[in-house]
């Protein structure tokens, strides 16, 4: 940073100049709004509770505290969700079925496998589409069409069909992730493989380079920035795919299963903590892709690759 020398060391100065303050602001606004909504949405039930118990001398502060600590609230309060997450992660053995980490791991393994298959499939499709006009014309419309089908509609069928031919376990779920994640990879990589400038392709032609050489020495590297961008989208929707894959199948484990059992038994706190776990997982996965991107980019010249192909002046 250029102005680091001018920066003062005080905590307030650092807060003021850094990103922390705006982030804290937004978070506190969300939390305040959350509690507001929680009181509002849980109020009718609480009134009913007081009526049934024939308590009439309740105070406003007691009412607020009670709405925020219901067992099955319409909207759980932030601290209830936090306590639930704490209890089901830190205080539970990660291998236990009651641990949220265990369920997160189940979903994560399907996500990872589906993402890996989806990435490879997407890249292979893009290679074919880039090199074959026939394939470009014939497969591209199908690829686009595949994504217009609601995943919720097709997920149970994938599971049922695969079960019928003897494939069960993590793979059917992973394939639903694949179904979603191959798309951004394929589309992004087609663009990436076509991103070299004509002058660079001419250059390879004058060298008498084969298609394979042009691919590995030019197209692949030119496409890398596109690959990482699409991978960030793909890994997030892989997670969505894995969770959705758990919903219609009556899965007993995984974040999707937690969501499902939570909704069966009206355990809204459990639903919300599973949702937060899913969000944290998605953020971590995207951050992981970003990290790999940074490492690869650094090894390829410490500069935003693909940004500079013409003269500097």
């Amino acid at each position: 940073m250029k102005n680091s020398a001018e920066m003062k060391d005080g905590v307030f100065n650092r807060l003021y100049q850094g990103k922390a303050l705006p982030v804290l602001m937004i978070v506190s606004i969300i939390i305040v709004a959350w509690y507001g909504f929680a009181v509002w949405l849980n109020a009718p039930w609480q009134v009913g509770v007081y009526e049934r118990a024939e308590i009439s001398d309740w105070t406003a502060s007691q009412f607020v505290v009670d709405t925020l600590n219901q067992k099955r609230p319409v909207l759980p309060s932030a601290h209830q969700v936090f306590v639930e997450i704490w209890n089901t992660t830190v205080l539970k053995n990660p291998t236990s079925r009651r641990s949220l980490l265990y369920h997160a791991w189940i979903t994560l393994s399907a996500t990872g496998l589906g993402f890996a298959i989806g990435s490879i499939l997407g890249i292979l499709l893009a290679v074919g589409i880039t090199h074959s006009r026939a394939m470009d014309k014939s497969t591209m419309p199908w690829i686009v069409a595949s994504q217009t089908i609601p995943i919720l509609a097709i997920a149970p069928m994938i599971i049922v069909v695969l079960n019928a031919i003897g494939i069960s376990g993590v793979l059917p779920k992973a394939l639903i992730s694949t179904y979603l994640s191959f798309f951004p990879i394929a589309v992004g990589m087609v663009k990436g493989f076509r991103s070299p400038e004509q002058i660079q392709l001419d250059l390879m032609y004058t060298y008498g380079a084969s298609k394979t050489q042009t691919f590995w020495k030019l197209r692949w590297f030119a496409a890398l920035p596109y690959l990482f961008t699409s991978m960030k989208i793909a890994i997030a929707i892989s997670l969505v795919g894995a969770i959705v894959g758990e919903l219609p199948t009556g899965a007993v484990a995984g974040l999707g299963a937690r969501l499902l059992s939570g909704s069966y038994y009206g355990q809204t706190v459990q639903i919300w903590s599973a949702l937060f776990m899913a969000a944290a997982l998605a953020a971590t996965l995207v951050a992981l892709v970003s990290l790999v991107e940074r490492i690869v980019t650094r090894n390829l010249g410490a500069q935003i690759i693909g940004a500079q192909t013409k003269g500097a002046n």
Partner: protein
Amino acid sequence: MSPVISAKKLSLTFKTNDGPVHALSEVDLDINKGEFISFIGPSGCGKTTFLRVVADLEQPTDGSITVNGKSPAEARQNRDYGYVFQAPALLPWRTVQKNVALPLEIIGMSKVEQEKRTKRTLAMVNLDGFEKKFPWQLSGGMQQRASIARALAFDADLLLMDEPFGALDEIVRDHLNEQLLKLWSDTKKTICFVTHSIPEAVYLSTKIVVMSPRPGRVIDVIKSTLPAKRPLDIRETPEFLKIAHRVREGLRTGNAYEE
């Protein structure tokens, strides 16, 4: 001795939505070994197209052309020429050395030999010491020099240069012109050089081909009477100005200056 490049009634017509464009029309030209030929003319006169036909990047629609006695396609597959484009077109993820080694990697040369070659060609363009730099760390002039080193890597006897210094400022350009002349006299290569600058063409060439657009054709071929050794200030001698004048006249008769 047979010419390096020999074009006979060479024509190339592009089909466009606005009708056919006659980029080249019946061009007859022989280029001999060791010559420094400049192609000059306004845009659309076919000078770049001619170079691209020689390099097998475009296919002529009529007439014939040979490069080293072969068809352009055979010459290209035989790596008979090096081509320098208008932009350096260095691959940004490769170091300067790796960029220069790219054509050598493609022909499957051994790593040791690659290293020797790149070292030598980088020295030829005065870029020794910059092997490990990335393209974005170099100035525009240095980038273009790196791309010339890359074109020299095959050590082909023919060098095709398409307005290589067009994007550079005058001072850098003068400097590179001087270096290019030295390189040419050291290596005795045949150089085809496309430009739209009259002083550049006259300063560099042993022969200047003046071209005119619509249809692209050769108006005049001027043999330079300047000595082989040319300091930069030769550009103020009457001899130089006489040739420059003839080039300008050629461009004028070719209606090159029409509005």
